[in-house]
């Protein structure tokens, strides 16, 4: 997964170079192991560098030939390696043999080996290990046969199979051509310029008017206009949408890291998720956008990573209302072998709405005849268009690679969904939901996570374990995921009952254990589990809504406010997020951009 941008425009005060760099910097969350740009201006100026954006910026501004300010059109790319290691050569854009055509691409070209072989036979020379590089050579071949640039671009795209959002420029043209298939691509329209990008934040500070391209559509942008056509080249009627969030939603606002900002943003994010959906006076939850969705007979959740943990929690909330529900890892979801019966609803949970594994699972569920629902944070995302129904979690943009506020918002959204779909909601539950933003705020106001992190952030530790039962079990898994993502320490989470079936063998005084003990999690049994690890010398930190009975058994008690026991794990999770953040900080990690990871995984 990667991010691509393209721009052409006629404004004197806005250079192609500047727009591309801004766009790439706003897309860095999609990948950041290398980056590059190509700007057409009679000739083609291509610069690409392994490393983060400042490296690229230096390469563009310094050196013998700084990239000119007055290009006609340009494309850019920020990369997260799938084919070939991060290096200058493997960075995009890729060019043809003549250096006249440059291409950026997000996705995977499945038949690139065959294409590359046949191109090589015809004398094309390749400089990288990437799948992408076949595209400029295919375009070059078609141009050589007399095609116009646009026709050549279409012919090249015809040849490739797989998933792609791809954009191309030609040295002599002021046009950028682009298309997508199963990778995101959005067009931005301004009065004097046109933008293409994998995601809206790339150009949000220039314009909020966008068109989401569908699979198989082509976009051509030139300073005088933009057009969108279908596979056969016929013009398509499109609807222009206006983005209602502000570019400033994506600033650090005084925090050292986006992750910390987003952790502190949770009370507001949860408020937005709840807003207009609770009918306190009627005793119900209503979700406008889910009109026509009946009570399901059976629910399958499909999701990956943090969204999978939210799904485990969501499945429990559906089961508590009598609906058989199971959470599947999207990459393991195989409708051929998992029965979809009449009345089965498949719910895809994906923050970005672009997660390739989840998209594939939703598509298969659709074709198997299931009713599908997407739970996503991104309006207009691929998954939101794939499913029959969409529930937006309204967390606002999340930039840090490690998901925090979107996990909380997903849990809240799935709680709302379970209530809305099954009828009435009792007053205590409604009140607990309405109090949740303030309860999260109180955790943030009073957390001692920083001190605890300082005590256990130690390279001498062998591993960190997270345990919980019931509604708290998914939070134990998520706590471990967060810590490993950003601190690079080994961390595992499991339902506490599983301890004695294996993991206990690993427990020593160098394996701190974080136990989530909340109202529903059978505190007495948890106490037994805590004693199992404590008696083997492990330091124990209990995150709990009833501190007093545990205080004697553990090294630290991290309190959370008392609330509905089914919502308490959401509060416990905030403490674990803060612990992970401060441990990573103590260890000097990069936090917002952990090694080898990217925000939305658009490859399978």
């Amino acid at each position, binding site marked *: 997964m990667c991010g691509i941008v393209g721009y052409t425009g006629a404004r004197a005060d806005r250079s192609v170079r500047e727009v591309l760099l801004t766009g790439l910097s706003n897309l860095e969350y999609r990948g950041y192991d290398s980056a590059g740009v190509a700007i057409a201006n009679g000739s083609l100026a291509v610069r690409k560098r392994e490393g983060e954006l400042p490296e690229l910026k230096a390469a563009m501004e310094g050196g013998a030939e700084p990239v000119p300010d007055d290009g006609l059109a340009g494309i850019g790319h920020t990369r997260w390696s799938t084919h070939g290691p991060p290096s200058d050569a493997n960075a995009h854009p890729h060019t043809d043999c003549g250096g006249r055509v440059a291409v950026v691409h997000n996705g995977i070209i499945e038949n690139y080996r065959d294409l590359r072989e046949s191109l090589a036979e015809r004398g094309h020379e390749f400089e990288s290990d990437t799948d992408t590089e076949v595209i400029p050579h295919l375009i070059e071949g078609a141009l050589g046969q007399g095609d116009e640039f646009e026709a050549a671009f279409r012919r090249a795209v015809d040849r490739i199979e797989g998933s792609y959002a791809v954009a191309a420029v030609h040295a002599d043209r002021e046009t950028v051509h682009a298309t997508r298939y199963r990778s995101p691509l959005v067009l931005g329209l301004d009065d004097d310029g046109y933008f293409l990008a994998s995601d809206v934040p790339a150009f949000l500070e220039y314009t909020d008017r966008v068109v989401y391209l569908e699979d198989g559509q082509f976009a051509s942008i030139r300073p005088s206009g933009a057009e969108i056509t279908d596979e056969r080249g016929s013009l398509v009627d499109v609807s222009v949408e206006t983005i209602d969030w*502000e570019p*400033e*939603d994506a*600033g*650090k*606002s*005084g*925090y050292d890291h986006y992750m910390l*900002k987003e952790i*502190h*943003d949770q*009370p*507001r994010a949860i*408020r937005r998720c*709840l*807003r*207009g959906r609770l*009918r*306190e*006076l009627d005793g119900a939850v209503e979700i406008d956008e889910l009109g026509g969705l009946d009570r399901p007979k059976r629910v399958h959740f499909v999701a990956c990573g943090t969204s999978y943990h939210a799904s485990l929690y969501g499945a429990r909330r559906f089961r508590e209302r009598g609906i058989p529900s199971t959470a599947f890892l999207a990459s393991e979801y195989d409708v051929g072998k998992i029965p979809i019966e009449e009345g089965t609803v498949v719910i895809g949970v994906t923050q970005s709405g672009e997660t390739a594994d989840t998209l594939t699972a939703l598509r298969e569920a659709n074709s198997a005849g299931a009713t599908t629902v997407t739970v996503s944070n991104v309006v207009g995302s691929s998954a939101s268009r794939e499913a029959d129904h969409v529930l937006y979690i309204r967390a606002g943009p999340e930039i840090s690679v490690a998901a925090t506020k979107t996990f909380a918002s997903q849990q809240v959204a799935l709680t709302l969904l379970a209530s809305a779909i099954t009828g009435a909601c009792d007053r205590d539950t409604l*009140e607990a939901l*309405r*109090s949740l*933003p*303030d*309860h999260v*705020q*109180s955790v*943030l*106001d*009073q957390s001692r996570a920083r001190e605890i992190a300082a005590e256990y952030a130690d390279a001498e530790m062998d591993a960190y374990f997270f345990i919980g039962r019931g509604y708290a079990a998914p939070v134990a898994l998520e706590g471990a995921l967060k810590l490993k993502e950003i601190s690079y320490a080994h961390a595992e989470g499991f339902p506490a009952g599983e301890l004695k079936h294996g993991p206990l063998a690993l427990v020593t005084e160098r394996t701190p254990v974080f136990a989530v003990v909340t109202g529903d999690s059978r505190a007495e049994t948890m106490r037994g589990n805590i004693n199992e690890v404590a008696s083997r010398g492990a330091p124990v930190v209990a995150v709990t809504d009833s501190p007093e009975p545990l205080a004697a058994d553990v090294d630290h008690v991290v309190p959370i*406010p008392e609330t509905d026991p089914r919502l308490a794990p959401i509060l416990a999770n905030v403490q674990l997020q803060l612990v992970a953040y401060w441990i990573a900080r103590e260890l000097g990690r990069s936090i917002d951009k952990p090694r080898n990871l990217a925000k939305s995984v658009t490859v399978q």
Partner: protein
Amino acid sequence: MAIETAVVLAAGEGTRLRPLTRNRPKPMLPAATKPILEHVFDQLLEAGIERLVVVVGYGRNRVQSHFGPTYRNTPITYVTQESQLGTGHALLTAESAVDGSFLAINGDQIADDSIVRDVLETHGDGSKAMPNDGPAATLALLRRPADGEYGGAHVDDGRVTELEESPGDDRSYHLNAGIYACEPAVFDAVREATSETGEHSLIDGLSRLVSSDDLVRGVVTEGTWVDATYPWDLLDVSFALCDAGMLEADPPAGDRSAATIHDRAVVREPAVIDRDCVIGPGAVVGPYVCLGENATVGSNAVLERSVVDADTTVADNATVVDCVTGTGVTIGAGSTVPGGPGDVRVGDRVFEDESLGALLADRVTDHGGVAYVPGTIVGPDTELRTGATVRGTVPERTEVWP
């Protein structure tokens, strides 16, 4: 070039407003339903300020999370004052974020935009060809007694001749409204004004300019100017904003269309009801009630002359008059806050006959049927059990039984 940047001082706790400041600084306490600081920003933007530099310290997460990187499309730069070493020190913290002339203003007092405009206009163009003929600083003075709570100044023909941090003598001073247009020279003056304790006072810095040859102008002006010195002042501050029509800003404080109000509830104006609020049947809300975001008023509850902060619940049949609450407070079913006057104890001082029914800090939970003696202050996270009677000052994180 006109002054475009305002440095807003929002790093201090405001200890006299304890226990409301347990989790957030004074600028984040509610005036009507929005933080005081948000009103300050509104007036600055009205007056033409285009960039905000906010000095944060105590409880800075709350400020940063509330506003984010911009306010109404105006960029905010946050600078952190790690230790609270005076207003001058706070200003110096912002020095690297400021280029050229700027406005300095307290983030915990609300002045309407006409006062800000008067200061900016009187100060005039800072970048004159002759640097010595313009004022080094210009401050707003009000025709009100500076009775020891506030700084005062003497002014002669628009020129400030004397500045006092807290005037103690019998002479009559103009009140210093805490709004200063400044040239960069103010930074040097403040830097040089170091007290024995290492603190920097803004007033001492400006006094140095007054006593040197630099021109410090004072503009005597009028307009709404409000400040909460003690917790119960939040009531008068909020009501003054209601009466002055200062709640019409964009976005409006208290967007009633986004609240749920039962057909059989009665709202008596003036009342500010923020979004996500729920008011049950038979409830009577107002006059002079400000309900923060997501507050709940139960069936047949009666609420008058009170400022109720976000996420607070006033349960069925409760009666609440002259009350200030923090966030997440629960006033239980049938509880009674009968209203002032009452004697209020703050630290070692007792204030007699203040119109305060009760002050309940963040997340006080009352389980119902609780009677509040006028003037009661309850600390954060304290639980009041059913049927308890509370009076005086109840410390934080305690439990009160009947």
